[in-house]
């Protein structure tokens, strides 16, 4: 069918696997070996690169302004981190903002080229970048700080996101028929979404079984919560997609061969993390060390 595409596809896959092979050890080292300081430095680097990509997506041309945008973002993140306001309240606000994003996505899905109503222009688009990326960095840092030697909560989160991603990809490829949001991301299907949800739920149930003793009621709540987290991971994906569509690019950058840019890798994480944080607070899993979080 797509005979001419096959070689490039294979090269892409090879690149993708190679990049993953390089990223994985870094990721694991960050999770298990680094202390909190090392982790926050790594996060600062990731934040800087992501903000750089966001600046490109939202049409900042001047290098000076890009630099200021990135530096300001890092300073804001650091201020949050040291001001002690990283807690439940912050993530409730961020979560509410993501709900607004859902609304914006629906608007966009209804009317083609409704960029203006769905996306910010100029400063508003820049703010979107801060809103998407800074809470993510803060949340990851909080989870790492909660237990920096054996970061269970972080690991479970990434397992959920990855299994949702992979499940959605496989299910979409095998059964995909009904488009989810053709105007935003033509590749996504409802079948894929269901597959992603199921994969995430299986992984979440396994994680719960191996790590915690949950009563049935708590198990059901946990699975419901994971379903919501998974749905938001898709929201994050779609939100970045419309920015990319407006900018007329397929990938947010070229930093990760085969994967695209950093934003392409972390878009789902950004939207899912606030809801995950709220779940953890709700389950009181973060309460024990409440102070060290702030």
């Amino acid at each position: 069918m797509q005979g001419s595409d096959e070689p490039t596809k294979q090269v892409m896959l090879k690149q993708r696997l190679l990049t993953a092979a390089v990223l994985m050890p870094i990721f694991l080292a960050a999770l298990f070996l680094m202390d909190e300081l090392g982790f926050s430095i790594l996060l600062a680097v990731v934040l800087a690169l992501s903000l750089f990509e966001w600046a490109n997506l939202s049409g900042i041309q001047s290098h000076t302004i890009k630099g200021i945008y990135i530096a300001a973002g890092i300073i804001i993140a650091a201020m949050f981190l040291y001001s002690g306001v990283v807690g439940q309240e912050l993530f409730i606000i961020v979560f509410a903002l993501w709900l607004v994003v859902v609304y914006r996505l629906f608007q966009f899905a209804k009317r083609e080229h409704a960029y203006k109503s769905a996306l910010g222009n100029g400063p508003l688009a820049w703010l979107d970048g801060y809103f998407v990326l800074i809470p993510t960095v803060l949340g990851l840092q909080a989870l790492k700080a909660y237990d920096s030697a054996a970061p269970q909560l972080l690991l479970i989160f990434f397992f959920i996101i990855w299994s949702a991603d992979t499940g959605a990809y496989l299910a979409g490829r095998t059964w995909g028929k009904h488009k989810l949001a053709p105007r935003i991301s033509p590749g996504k299907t409802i079948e894929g979404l269901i597959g992603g949800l199921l994969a995430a739920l299986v992984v979440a149930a396994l994680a719960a079984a191996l790590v915690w003793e949950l009563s049935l009621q708590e198990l059901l709540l946990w699975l419901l919560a994971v379903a919501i987290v998974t749905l938001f991971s898709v929201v994050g994906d779609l939100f970045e997609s419309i920015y990319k569509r407006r900018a007329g690019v397929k990938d947010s950058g070229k930093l990760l061969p085969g994967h695209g840019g950093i934003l392409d890798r972390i878009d789902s994480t950004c939207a899912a993390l606030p809801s995950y944080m709220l779940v953890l607070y709700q389950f009181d899993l973060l309460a024990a060390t409440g102070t060290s979080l702030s």
Partner: protein
Amino acid sequence: MLEFLYSIAGFIIALGILVAVHEFGHFWVARKLGIKVLKFSVGFGRAIWSRTANDGTVYAVGVIPLGGYVKMLDENEGDVAVEEQHRAFNRQPIWKRSLVVLAGPMFNFFFAIAAYSLVFVNGVEGITPVVGKVVEGSVAEADGFRNGDVLLSLDGKKLNSWQEQRLYLFSKALARKTVSYEVRTSDGQEIRRTLNLANVPMSEIDAGLVAEGIGLIGWYPTVPPVIDQVISGKPAVRAGFLPGDLITAVDGEKVASWNEVVQLISDNPGKPLRIVVSRNGFFESISVIPEVVIDGEKQIGRIGISVKPIEIPEDRIVNTNYGLMESLYRGTETTWMMSVLTLRMLVKMVTLEVSSKNISGPITIAQYAGKSAQVGLTSFILFLAIVSVSLGVLNLLPIPILDGGHLLYHLIEVITRKPVSEKLMIIGQQVGILLLFLLMSLAVYNDLGRLLN
């Protein structure tokens, strides 16, 4: 010996029932999805009973009561007429095949839920919720709990038996919460006591949570230190202990209960002990050196004497039963917890984390739950439920030849977009069998280790 044979027979019957349930799951879902079932057999081997239904399905009971099988129309196992191909298993879309495979373990879980629910409707025996001992330096001691406290309610819910609080404490300990008890103290005052479970170390949140983690030990009748049996080949025989001896002192310390005796002997591995017994109205002093036994990471002493199990007085036994909905809920919850514990036990076995003490399998849990006190049909149903859960969990492991292995093949099929090759399946089968044998050897090795200790 007879008892042993009984338990073997009981195990075979249980396995027969549960495999039938498992296979019925495959059978029922396959038929619902329009796949043609050729044969449904409970038990293997030559059929001692068989009937052919109108649609051509053969129902049979095999002579060997271990296991059973469902044979479906399948082009990999024989020629299939063209007009029947749409009903062949291998022609079904992958989600249908996966559902058929999944149905077996699922029916085992459903069976466990039904069995537990039945037991809850019928009533669960337990011991009255009275504190028998508060462990020194424990969380419970720090929070003021005292020997003799009667636990009336836990977070506003009436406590009927000691065992009833276990599940609830589990979840609260995990959530690092504080729970509140209404307590009648031994001098008759009714007061409120809070227990801060955040102080229980995470590592202690397991089957022994209440006793070892929190430090609350339930009341249990005092077992008098009368020797029932002296085990041959052990130090006690050589030292001259006899059945019927009443132990009155160990190393100069007066003892009144069996537990004290066990504690003192355990604490002195390899050290000579002077034990005073009362025999036929005379006191005798016997010297014995407890042999050293490895228990987990500790060395403990044993001399090889046993005690007669004691009966719990009627007025201390409570029977709690629940309504249908509550029973279903509790049944489902228990099934979930048992699945979790089975899975963890398997993980521990595979990761060789199997010191003889730390492994708390479903059986241990059942003991903790006080269910071993039950006799007759109830205990058999509980046993069925536990084995059913194990069967369900075990079959879901991604090992070729098990249901989970089939699901793994299906997953590979989805990823590579073509069916798993026959060659890989054959290799998988070998690996699967090897893995199963490894798992079984580990289990047996571990059990033997425990027996020898």
